[in-house]
């Protein structure tokens, strides 16, 4: 009897809920870099009146300086808006922003999983690019309805018809009434809003089931602790509920929950299936909240977590050292602060003979690596020495034991290694047709295996390769750009580990191995790389008070040799006329240069020496 009454109550709730859900649209905007994702987001926020024009700082969603500058989104954010549609009804839009780069594929996929639809922005001049497709595939995997829009139609080079056809041919979406817009100049935005209402589906929610909420992001707040971003699939979450994170197994008590508005959090009493919102539960560390985990109630937990969870996997590692050893503590504090909002960043203390005390840091990919270093230098005002990034090698010892090596220094001696394996990725390069030859040449020189090639249209192709990741992290993207006059775009995803004939290349200065300059390379490339690095080091190491021999060696065998000649003097003659300030400025400049140097044994090395093993012009 009791059961029945509950059921009855629930079914009436369901009816009310269906009405509620019909007025919700949860969506993302996906685009290739620079195609106008953030600008469109800004316009949508503006048009829904969620924020007035005056409050509008361009690109609300990308709030980090670095994000604005690079035009990419590093952290996902969500915004809730109300839109009065032409049908007279008021809809709730939850716009979930996604990170815009291949390094953050998994994060993108989780953000998309929190949506029911996606707005696909394509540049009217540039058409579909590698990341456009990569994001479309992710959206399709997440079963999202995709609403294409063509942006920048007011550009002189705009070809909306060509691009519309591309959307139909390459992606297979109906582009017959695709909105032709200019986000920047506010053209046709209402059409996008209307199509969000008419073409994107409302969420399907089951308020009666056991609570299952997808965690798609988190951020750290000094006062509240971790703010967890969730999309409720089933059930209802109330203030005071005891919650369980299904993968981590930790439980917490909800102290606050609510919705996102631009620039602020709006507390509420409960979140219901279909809703996008935030949860605060006295969680201290973002790493305790894994993206993709499922949040449920501790009292009556769901039986199955939501699908798609994957633990964070760092693919690229490097050593980060303060340029000035005295800044070690500052570097540690800064990394800790960064990690508050970046659970994908890992670091642990490391000690290098050449560089002193620093940290071995793990990143999702090369862009993540560059962003972290740039933020440390800019936001935390640190001067850093970064060693060449390394991938994670799987090393099987002669004793059969398998170890993972992310630091060349930790590679066992060759006699103890049975074989080594390296990560292989699937790389997709999208390029104008005229450059296919160049791209093939480059990919082959980087040990790539050609898989196949699709024609996007008469002029552009999408080339698929399988390639060792360690080739991609050593300056592949820059070289690709220069060989395609900037036109090619790249995305890649991890495939598998594969055996390879790899060796450790050591660099010796003044007869001593500089541990921070060692790296792992394919044997066929070792000679060439060794020679180039020795040459490059000769150029970047300034002359010092004595001669410095530079050697590259494999397992004790020297394969390349160069010498930095000693300089003979370093003195400002003539110091009169009274302009002491100028002399001091010259000395200061010199000293500034010296401050960026690392003392390695008796040799002073400029910070870029460590990067030069990475960046070799080919």
């Amino acid at each position: 009897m009791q059961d029945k009454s509950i059921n009855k109550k629930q079914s009436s709730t369901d009816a009310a809920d269906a009405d509620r859900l019909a007025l919700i649209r949860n969506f993302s905007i996906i685009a290739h870099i620079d195609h106008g994702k953030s600008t469109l987001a800004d316009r949508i926020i503006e048009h829904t009146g969620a924020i007035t024009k005056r409050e509008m700082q361009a690109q609300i969603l990308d709030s980090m300086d670095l994000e604005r500058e690079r035009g990419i989104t590093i952290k996902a954010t969500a915004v809730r808006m109300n839109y009065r549609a032409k049908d007279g009804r008021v809809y709730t839009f939850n716009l979930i922003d996604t990170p815009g780069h291949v390094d953050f594929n998994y994060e993108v996929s989780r953000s998309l999983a929190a949506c029911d639809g996606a707005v696909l922005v394509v540049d009217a001049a540039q058409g579909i690019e590698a990341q456009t497709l990569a994001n479309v595939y992710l959206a399709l995997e997440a079963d999202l309805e995709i609403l294409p829009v063509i942006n920048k139609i007011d550009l002189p080079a705009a070809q909306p018809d060509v691009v519309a056809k591309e959307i139909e041919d390459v992606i297979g979406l109906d582009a017959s009434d695709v909105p032709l817009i200019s986000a920047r100049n506010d053209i046709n935005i209402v059409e996008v809003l209307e199509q969000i209402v008419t073409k994107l589906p409302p969420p399907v929610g089951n308020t009666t089931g056991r609570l299952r909420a997808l965690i798609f992001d988190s951020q750290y707040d000094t006062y509240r602790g971790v703010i967890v971003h969730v999309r409720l699939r089933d059930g209802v979450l109330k203030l005071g509920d005891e919650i369980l994170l299904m993968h981590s197994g930790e439980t917490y008590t909800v102290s606050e929950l609510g919705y996102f508005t631009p620039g602020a959090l709006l507390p509420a009493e409960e979140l219901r299936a279909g809703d996008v919102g935030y949860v605060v539960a006295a969680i201290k560390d973002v790493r305790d909240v894994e993206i993709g985990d499922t949040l449920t109630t501790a009292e009556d937990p769901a039986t199955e977590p939501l699908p798609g969870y994957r633990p964070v996997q760092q693919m690229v590692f490097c050593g980060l050292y303060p340029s000035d050893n005295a800044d070690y503590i500052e570097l540690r504090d800064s990394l800790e602060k960064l990690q508050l909002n970046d659970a994908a960043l890992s670091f642990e203390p490391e000690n290098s003979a050449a560089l002193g005390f620093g940290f071995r840091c793990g990143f999702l990919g090369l862009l993540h690596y560059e962003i972290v270093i740039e933020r440390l230098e800019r936001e935390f005002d640190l001067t850093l020495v970064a060693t060449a990034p390394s991938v994670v090698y799987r090393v099987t010892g002669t004793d059969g034991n398998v170890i993972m090596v992310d630091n060349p220094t930790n590679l066992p001696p060759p006699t103890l290694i049975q074989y080594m394996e390296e990560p292989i990725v699937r790389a997709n390069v999208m390029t104008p047709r005229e450059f296919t030859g160049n791209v093939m040449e480059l990919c082959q020189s980087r040990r790539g295996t050609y898989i196949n090639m699709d024609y996007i249209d008469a002029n552009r192709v999408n080339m698929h390769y399988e390639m060792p990741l360690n080739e991609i992290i050593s300056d592949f993207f820059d070289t690709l750009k220069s060989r395609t006059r900037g036109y090619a775009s790249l995305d890649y995803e991890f495939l598998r580990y594969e055996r390879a004939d790899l060796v450790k290349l050591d660099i010796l200065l003044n007869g001593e191995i500089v541990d921070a300059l060692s790296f792992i390379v394919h044997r066929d490339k070792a000679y060439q790389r060794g020679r180039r690095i020795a040459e490059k080091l000769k150029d970047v190491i300034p002359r010092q008070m004595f001669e410095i021999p530079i050697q590259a060696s494999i397992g004790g065998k020297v394969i390349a040799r160069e010498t930095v000649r000693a300089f003979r003097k370093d003195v400002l003659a003539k110091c009169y006329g009274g302009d002491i300030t100028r002399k001091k400025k010259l000395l200061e400049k010199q000293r500034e240069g010296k401050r960026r140097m690392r003392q390695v044994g008796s040799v002073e090395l400029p910070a870029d020496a460590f990067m030069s093993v990475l960046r070799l012009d080919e």
Partner: protein
Amino acid sequence: MEADNNSAERTFYLRRPLPRSLYIHLPFCIRRCPYCDFFSTVGQENFFPQYQKALLSEVRLVGCEVDFLRGRDPEYNGVETVYFGGGTPSLWSSEHIEQLLESIGTFVGIADGCEITLEANPSSLSFRHLSDLRAAGINRLSIGVQATDDNLLRKIGRLHNRAEAEAALKGAEKAGFANIGIDLMIGLPAQTIADIKSSLAWLREYPIQHVSAYSLIIEPDTPFADLYSPGGSLYRELPDPEDERKQWYTLREGLKAFGFEHYEISNFACPGYRSRHNSAYWSGDMYWGLGAGAHSYYRSRNDICPQRRANLNDLSAYAERVERADQISAMGELTEVMDAADIEKEFFLLGLRILDGVDLRNFTERFGHEVPASIRLILEKLVGIQLLIEESSVYRLSLKGEDYGNRVFSEFI
């Protein structure tokens, strides 16, 4: 607070608040030397009278400041060195020089035995002019000989030749100058050790008490920068660094063998003939700097510490500024802002250029407290890498340190 005040009272610039040196910049040349990056102008002869007038006004501004501070400087008897630098100060008429010295004597004061130097180009030093300059009060000459080979002199775009340099030196001696310095350059295009040796032999024959010897430095934004920078059409003519050093060692050892003391990185003097004016710079002493583009170092009535300033390096702008300035500190722009700690470090940065070195007891005497531990650490480190030599309380450059002086000086930035 009490202690701080006492310590401050003991610093040199409060005990002797008035500079003892005065520099006057005469930024006029017949022709620019293609390697020179000092502020100077060409073809501005019409401006001479106006410039002279501006300098006289600026002397009065200095005079006002001197009057303001004189009461706190009981030992003050006028400046002890005056230096006319340029440009080519020998272009200035002896009447103008005399007028300036008179005015300095009246408003600023000139101490007995004051060293009064004029920089001169051999081509503008007739005997007549030399005699008049001597009579006007100049008692030291610094003559820009630079080289003794006519081909070399042409190459570096000098107006004079060797014969004119010889005539100037003889004329100077005859005109009564007993303190004559010359400039010599090394590392010139196509210069050889043989050139250096012949210059050494040459200079023995002339009345020379002081030699400033320095390397050609290719400064940016000079005509030489285009020709002699790496990639420039004449770059290969420059001696390589090894040869340049050999030239330097040859010159240094030659001068020492003649009895010159190598007393500053690039300066040599017969005993008793060190440049007192330049020594003031290297000792961290204060000085007035007058004229367009001139640099000064003094503590105005508004400053806590002495400050470095530079006058505008534009003739008309400078002259206009002088007309409007109500006190000397309104003339120059600060080139940096110094505090007490900067001044202490500068004491070493500059002082170590003098090869006698820096005596830590002089530091204490000057600043009223011991050398800070941070500076001691630097000194010890530099001794450790053999750039400095320590003897009781004196630190001085080693021979190696002379070649790598910047390594030493930059530690005190």
